């Protein structure tokens, strides 16, 4: 079994290469997400970034989702505390933070489930990767798309409504519910059509 990051049969999904790629990529993504405002705002983010990186990497190594949960919560808490100092950039950062944390948790959870030592065949690595990692990636992209749609929708609606009646968070909340409900109805309609 190859232990290189990009083995000779690169191009094919290999259980060792996948595991190694994500075990490096996820902590790096976490560090990147945490470092961005650090450069802009506060030195506290450095500590946060170190903690999150350590937790993500330990979580994937130990196949323990609790570490990833803790990492995600720490990232959000640090964001909450630093938000006043971030100013206007804080809102944009918040827009990207949701999909970022979501993606890390999605892929991280999948990797904690997969244990390459218990796969009977190497082809199972490809099959389980296709069955789990690709949907996880798809969900991350879907989550990002929804965030962008809702943000764009809310920002365009916000000037039209009186903030005393409907504040921006409430607009987001309502839009999320409307969007989720709409998507579900479309899905049920598609399923019913198929039957």
């Amino acid at each position, binding site marked *: 079994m190859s232990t290189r990051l990009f083995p000779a049969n690169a191009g094919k999904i290999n259980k060792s290469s996948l595991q190694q790629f994500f075990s490096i990529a996820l902590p790096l993504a976490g560090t990147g997400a945490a470092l961005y405002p650090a450069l802009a705002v506060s030195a506290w983010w450095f500590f946060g970034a170190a903690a999150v990186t350590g937790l993500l990497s330990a979580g994937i190594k130990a196949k323990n*989702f609790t570490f990833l949960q803790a990492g995600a919560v720490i990232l959000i808490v640090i964001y909450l505390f630093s938000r006043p100092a971030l100013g206007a950039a804080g809102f944009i*950062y918040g827009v990207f933070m949701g999909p970022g944390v979501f993606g890390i948790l999605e892929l991280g959870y999948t990797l904690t489930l997969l*244990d390459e030592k218990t796969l009977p065949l190497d082809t199972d690595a490809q099959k389980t990767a296709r069955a789990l990692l690709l949907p996880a990636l798809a969900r991350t992209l879907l*989550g990002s798309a929804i965030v962008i749609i809702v943000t764009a929708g809310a920002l365009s609606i916000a000037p039209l409504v009186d903030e005393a009646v409907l504040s921006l968070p409430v607009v987001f909340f309502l839009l999320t519910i409307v969007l989720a409900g709409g998507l*579900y109805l479309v899905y049920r309609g598609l399923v019913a059509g198929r039957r």
Partner: protein
Amino acid sequence: MYLSAKAKLYLYLTGTLVFLGIALGRPELMLISLPFAVSLALPLFSETTALPDLAAEIENSELVEGSETTLHLTVKGKAKIPLLKITHELSIFNSGTVLREQRQLSLDKGETRKLKFTISTSPGPGRYRVGKFSLCGTDKSGMLYFKNFIRQTMEISVFPAINTLENVNLVNQPRLYHGYYTSPFRGEGLEFSEIKEYRHGDSLKHINWKKSLKWGNLLVNDRYLDRNIDVVIIVDSLSQAKGPGGNYLHIAARGAASLAHYYTGRNDRVGLIDYDGTIDPILPQSGSAQLKKILTRLSRLRESQLYVAKKAATIPKRVLPPQGVIYGLTCLSDDRAYNMFFDLASRGFYLVLIYISPTGLTGNLNSEEAETDSFTGEIWELRQEAKIASLKSLGARVARPAGDRIGPALAEIAAEGGSGTGGRGGFKTGPAKGGDLR
């Protein structure tokens, strides 16, 4: 179906972030919660999951310690399962040990997969129960999972390993004409043993008139019995000791198996008593069927948890063949076993005690424990030595194997020669010629 850890986390995050977003009036918190909130609806889109069909088959149901076998599992998917974890549970009845082996796979609807689970016998002899499977599958979203147990229980008997015994011929000699070995006992037979003085009870037809006339008093021809020896192996399973040095019951089982193999190989009759406070003997018989019977019983050897039969010190006469040789494998930790062996020795049976020292098995204690326990340990050792000495004084011969193999220790006491007592029924320690048992 159950909520996965991920689903629970998403639920908590969504709730907390939405609450904080509204409470603090921060729209970006609502934005962070968005993907998590949407994900919570994903299970609604998941297809229904059905448990796959499992069929298990084992290659061998009888194994000798040290070998291994394979459990073949056929899995047939009834629905698509992106990740299915199959955990096979192997439990060893004797020791309560449970070993688990896991396989992960992705299963399509209608797909059939064949998996192999290797059953190793490294934990030692025993009754291995295999075929209990735990299934855990996730749905496509990873938000839900199902778990279930499927039992297709099968049993494997793992017999103790047999070590070759050499030079442990404690009680008899190779015979010249009939079979490999003579019986050590005098009696009615064809093969001549010695000429001895006539004593009351000797048959008149055995009088050697020629020699009697020559020496001036009545002499009779003595003969070997026309049968081989009866051996009864008693394994004391009233106590257990295990540690880095080994497992007492496993060593005892291997020792008993080696003895049974050795004596049945010589066409002797061998019986077994698993002394666990009750007496359920395998009466002495010869042949390979008897050996298998003994090995099967030894594979079921377990520490007795029976504390009620405190006075099962006397093994009934009918169980022990007259002029038989008794091998006792013991660690003498339980006084009931000591009393039983004491009783046997005092009844005049030819008793060979194989003493497996528990201190040799449990290994060295760490320094703190060693300091506090050294005094207690010394007293305990002295008590053990006193027990052994009292058994020896009654004529029992004691072998102390250093490790797993009892052969060298038995060879040692065989080399020491005839220190055994006269057993019941006129048993002597060896033939007249030669004068010892080797």
